């Protein structure tokens, strides 16, 4: 790459055998798993087995840094100086130091997996922007999230490359931040694997008299628009007397509107809040579901519909954000906020029949377009392009 910058603690392997050394921010793997954590786990697993990359992970966390060892896939190196989160984020916001190399040694690329990428001494920088909820719907965001646009703008101004999980978000990033489109790359996620198939029961306790259920998965927050689904479910419940609505997801914030909608529902006794479920709980709930409803107002990608499609569960979703791009023809789409259309499609899906079978078949086929190996391949290309540009230090025109 560039010059002899002092004493590199670890020589990047590029010169010798063209392997890129990549430092990956695995902080989202700590604590309760989230969509970003699912991306980190899946991407790292796909990246770890590639023979053109040397993967290592780090965590920006003082208290929980020990936890990282057991959460990264094998084949991913760890080893870092402690990185206290709040002071570091304060330093990175104001001073552009300290660079990541102070903590993890020399790398060719550093990948910030969650909207923030540390400054570097010599490594190329890649940052994942999962969605632009914060730009599109600031009223749907909590306070820490509102800091993201500044951080993204800064990273872009300093030459970072941007990875997005969908072309939809890539276009949004270009429009919102005026980024050079060649530096923004959409690479689809893979399908998060559900634990083994059903070994008896959904694990969800349905109300008396209910034998079937509409499932919805996602943290309870305004963006998911659960009140719309609750209102649509009233109509489904009227047509199908043995159907329940099961909502899997922890309470995020602003769940008051959801509570009010449930309280106002005629079918409220058939609405089950299963709360947050671990992998096997989610798998069981998914495999036994009759249909997945995904009523979101905006998504940068959308794991749950893809998981449902891969599990052979029919999907009814809103055409919100990147959802159409992800589900393709493998789900029935309705306009965001259109409760009547949502209800009609759910009623239809619950009734079953040839059209639903065909939908499931298309969903299954579509889900096979997504894999973590493919995601890793796209990220590896992105890493290589970022490093290549880094290598061409000289301005062309002088």
């Amino acid at each position, binding site marked *: 790459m560039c010059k002899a910058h002092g004493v590199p603690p670890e020589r990047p392997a590029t010169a010798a055998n063209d392997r890129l050394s990549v430092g990956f921010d695995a902080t989202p793997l700590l604590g309760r798993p989230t969509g970003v954590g699912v991306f980190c786990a899946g991407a790292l697993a796909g990246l770890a087995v590639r023979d053109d990359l040397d993967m290592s992970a780090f965590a920006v966390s003082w208290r929980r840094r020990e936890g990282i060892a057991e959460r990264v896939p094998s084949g991913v190196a760890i080893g870092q100086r402690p990185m206290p989160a709040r002071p570091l984020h304060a330093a990175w916001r104001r001073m552009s130091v300290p660079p990541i190399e102070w903590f993890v040694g020399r790398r060719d690329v550093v990948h910030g997996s969650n909207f923030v990428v540390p400054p570097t001494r010599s490594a190329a920088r890649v940052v994942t922007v999962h969605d632009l909820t914060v730009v599109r719907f600031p009223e749907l965001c909590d306070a820490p999230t509102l800091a993201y646009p500044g951080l993204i703008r800064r990273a872009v*101004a300093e030459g970072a490359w941007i990875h997005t999980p969908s072309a939809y978000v890539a276009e949004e990033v270009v429009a919102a931040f005026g980024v050079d489109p060649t530096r923004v790359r959409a690479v689809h996620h893979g399908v998060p694997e559900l634990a083994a198939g059903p070994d008896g029961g959904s694990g969800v306790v349905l109300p008396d008299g209910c034998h079937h259920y509409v499932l919805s998965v996602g943290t309870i927050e305004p963006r998911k628009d659960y009140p719309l689904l609750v209102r649509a479910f009233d109509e489904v419940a009227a047509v199908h007397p043995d159907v329940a609505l099961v909502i899997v997801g922890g309470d995020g914030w602003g769940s008051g509107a959801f509570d009010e909608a449930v309280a106002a529902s005629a079918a409220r006794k058939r609405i089950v809040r299963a709360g947050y479920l671990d992998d096997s709980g989610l798998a069981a709930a998914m495999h036994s579901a009759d249909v997945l409803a995904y009523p979101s107002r905006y998504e940068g990608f959308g794991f749950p519909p893809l998981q449902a499609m891969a599990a052979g569960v029919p999907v009814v979703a809103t055409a919100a954000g990147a959802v159409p791009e992800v589900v393709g023809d493998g789900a029935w789409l309705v306009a965001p906020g259109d409760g009547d259309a949502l209800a009609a499609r759910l009623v239809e899906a619950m009734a079953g029949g040839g059209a639903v079978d065909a939908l499931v078949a298309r969903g299954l086929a579509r889900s096979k377009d997504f894999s973590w190996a493919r995601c890793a391949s796209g990220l590896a290309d992105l890493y290589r392009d970022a490093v290549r540009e880094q290598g061409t230090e*000289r301005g062309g025109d002088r």
Partner: protein
Amino acid sequence: MSRLRVLLLVEQLRRSAAGGIGTYVLGLLQGLNELAAVDPEDEPELILTASRARGGESDDPLAGLGHALRTSPLPGPLLTRAWDRGIVRAPSGLDVVHAASLATLEPGRVPLVVTVHDLLWRRVPDAYPPRGRRWHEAALARALRRADHFVVPAEVVAGDLVEAGASREAITVIPMGSDHLPPPDVPGAVARLASLGVRGPFLLCVGTLEPRKNLPRLIEAYESIREDLPERWPLVMVGPSGWGDQVMTGSGVVHAGTVSATELAGLYASARLLAYVPLIEGFGLPPVEAMSVGTPVVASPLPSTGGAAREVDPNDTASIAAGLLTVATDDAVREELIRRGSARAAELSWASIARRHREVWDRVSGRRGAG
């Protein structure tokens, strides 16, 4: 033997524009870090100290630098005054106290090392505001009384310091490093230039807009050769407005203001040359930054360049003009300067500079290598 415990005074990093001293402190930390990666047993235990953080403890950026941090409950200006007057002293249990600038504290029985970057306020008083001059003079007197050893970036500063009363044996010359620029953001720099109407080759000048930097003469020299360039390549000036009221404009002169570090690196990397012609400088960092990314330099005689720049007389506009024209257009001269500049930059790694600081600390603390 237990690790050497060093208290490093880093108050400069609290300033919004930390300037050359900030670069020095961060470069030193970078170099110590690189040494520690190779030789962890020998790593000194650093304790950084500064005034209280404005945003509160847990958001203190200085706590993120990877070393222990002691903050004073006092805000910056009060703390330096308390240091000045000996009200706040060094804590116990230290082997060395190192002040990164003339803001020193009463070290007690612990040896104190002070880095003196220059004594320019004495040489060119007109280039300093009066209040700054008075503070520098008083701080120098305190440093001379308190310090056991001095670090200076150049022999000429050592001479000035001896003249001020220090003993030459108590001074070690350690230059500044060159390898602290972040990865150059060339596309960002190109976009920035385009927004200023600059496309294609350009000449670059970096530094605060203040009288000592001799910018009016540089601009005059540039104007005189502008028509002789293959095209009328602009002169791009990067840096914050400092003080003084000289007019710094001319045809083809473009002010880029303050830019991000990666963009600055990108500007260095895409410039035809760096022009840096201050009347006087303790070291002169921009030339070695330019050399580190392979850009030829036109400069006044400075400690930093080590003979790797095209030297011009900063008092002679014609000399500056000739230097600019030659380095902008003569490919053989350019190649030679790029080659020498890269070699000079490579000499000045922060790791080697940190090693020399460690040797000074070992010596003054009586750890080893005393003879």
